[in-house]
C-alpha cells in the first residue's frame, strides 16, 4: 500500500492505495464519484476523462499514485453543485442535445472544457480534432460539435474549469 494525498473536486483526500489501482478506479470505488465512467479497456474512448492539475487526461491510463500531491477535477466538480448550477459547457450540451445515451458525455464535457480553455474560439474542424480522443457510439458527433461551438459563443470563450 502507498499513501496518497490529493485534492479531488475541491476537497482534500488521503488514502492508502495499492500502486496498481487506476485513478478512475480510485475515483469510482474509493470516493464514489461514479460520474466518471469506464468505456473501454484500451484507453481509446475518453469516457473517463478528468482534469489533472488543470489539463485533460484519461483517468483509466493514470495510476492513483501518480496523482499524489496533485489536483483532480471530475465532471462532478465542474459546476458549483451546491448552487444548483451547471457549467456553461454542461448547459450547452443540454441546450444543443449533445447526447443520446449519455455514456460518453462526462468525458466529452471534460475534454470540451480543456479544449475551450486552450482555444476559446475554435473552428468546427478544430473542435473535431480537439475531441478526437473521445468516442461516441450514438450521436454521430454532430450535436456534440454543435454543443462545443455553442458553449464557445455563449461564453465568448470565457470558459474555465
Amino acid at each position, binding site marked *: 500500500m*502507498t499513501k496518497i494525498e490529493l485534492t479531488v473536486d475541491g476537497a482534500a483526500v488521503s488514502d492508502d492505495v*495499492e*500502486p*496498481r*489501482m*487506476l485513478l478512475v*478506479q480510485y475515483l469510482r470505488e474509493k470516493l464514489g464519484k461514479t460520474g466518471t465512467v469506464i468505456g473501454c*479497456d*484500451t*484507453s*481509446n474512448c*475518453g469516457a473517463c*476523462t478528468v482534469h*489533472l492539475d488543470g*489539463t*485533460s*487526461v*484519461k483517468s483509466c*491510463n*493514470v*495510476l492513483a*499514485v*501518480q496523482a*499524489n500531491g496533485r489536483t483532480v477535477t471530475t465532471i462532478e466538480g465542474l459546476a458549483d453543485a451546491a448552487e444548483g448550477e451547471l457549467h456553461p459547457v454542461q448547459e450547452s450540451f443540454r441546450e444543443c442535445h449533445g447526447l443520446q445515451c449519455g455514456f460518453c458525455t462526462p468525458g466529452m464535457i471534460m*475534454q470540451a472544457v*480543456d*479544449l475551450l480553455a486552450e482555444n476559446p474560439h475554435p473552428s468546427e474542424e478544430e473542435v473535431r*480534432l*480537439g475531441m*478526437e*480522443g*473521445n468516442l461516441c457510439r450514438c450521436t454521430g458527433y454532430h450535436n456534440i460539435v454543435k454543443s462545443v461551438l455553442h458553449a464557445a459563443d455563449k461564453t465568448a470563450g470565457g470558459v474555465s474549469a
Partner: protein
Amino acid sequence: MIPVKFDYLAPTSVEEALAALGEHGDDAKILAGGQSLLPVLRMRLNAPEVVIDLGGISSLRGIRDDGDAIVIGAMTTHHDVRDDHLVKQHALLLSKAAAEVADSQIRHRGTFGGALAHADPAGDLGAPALALGAQFVVAGPGGTRTVEASDFFVDLFETAIGDDEILTEVRIPKHTGWGAHYEKFVRVAHQWPIVAVAATVRGSIDEARVGLTNMGSTPLRATATEQALAGVSATEDGVREAAQLAADGTHPPSDLNGAADYRQHLARVLTGRAVLRAAGV
C-alpha cells in the same frame, strides 16, 4: 482489467532511479507518462515486480537552448514539445509530429523520452528524431553516454538503452528556419499511422531530410530521396520525381492495415506531399 500487483518507487533524482534500477534489474520497469506502459500492464502482457516512476524527477522535464542544439528532457510531454517556442524555431518538424501523436489527453501525459524509448515502429516521433540527427543522452551506473540516432533504434521496441540505463535527454541539432511537415496516413483518428513521412527542408530546396514511420522495424531515413532533393526547385514535378525513390531499400510489414507494396506506394505519395508542404508549396 487492472495490472498485476507491483511495488512502486518514486525517486526524485536520476541517481536514485539508477540505484533502484540496479537493485531490481530485470524485475523492474521504468514508468514515464505511462501511456504505452499502462495499457501493456493492464492487458497483462508484462508484469514487472517493481515500477520506477520518473514523474517526480523535475530535472528530466523541460527544453533548453544549448548553442548549436536544443535539448529536450526525457519527461517533457508531447503537448509541451508541440507548443514550445524553441522547438518551433529550431526543430519545427518535432512540433508538427508531436501534434499528430495520439489525442489531446494522451499528449498531456505521454513523454518525448518515453515514446522514443518505447520504440514502436509506428510511433510518430522516431522518424523526425532520426531525420533531425538527434543525439540520445543515456545515464547508467558508469556515467553518461551519447548515442547517435543512427545507432539508437535497434529493432521493434528495442533501442540502445541498456537494462540498467535511463534516457535523460535528447539533443536536437538546430535546423533554424527549416520548413517542416509531418504527413500521417491513418485509418482511424488518434491512432498510430499505417505509414507517415517526416520532412524538413532548408530553402526551396537547398537541403532536405526525410524520415519514414512504420516502413520497417525501426524508423528509416529516405536517403536517396534526400540526395535527389538537394538543389531541386520546389515544384510538383521536381519533388514527385525525388519522392519516387522514398521506398527504395525498405522492407515494410504486411498486416491488416496494408500489404508491404501498398506501404511502399504510400511512402512515395506521402513523401511528395510532405516535402511540398515543408517547402511551403
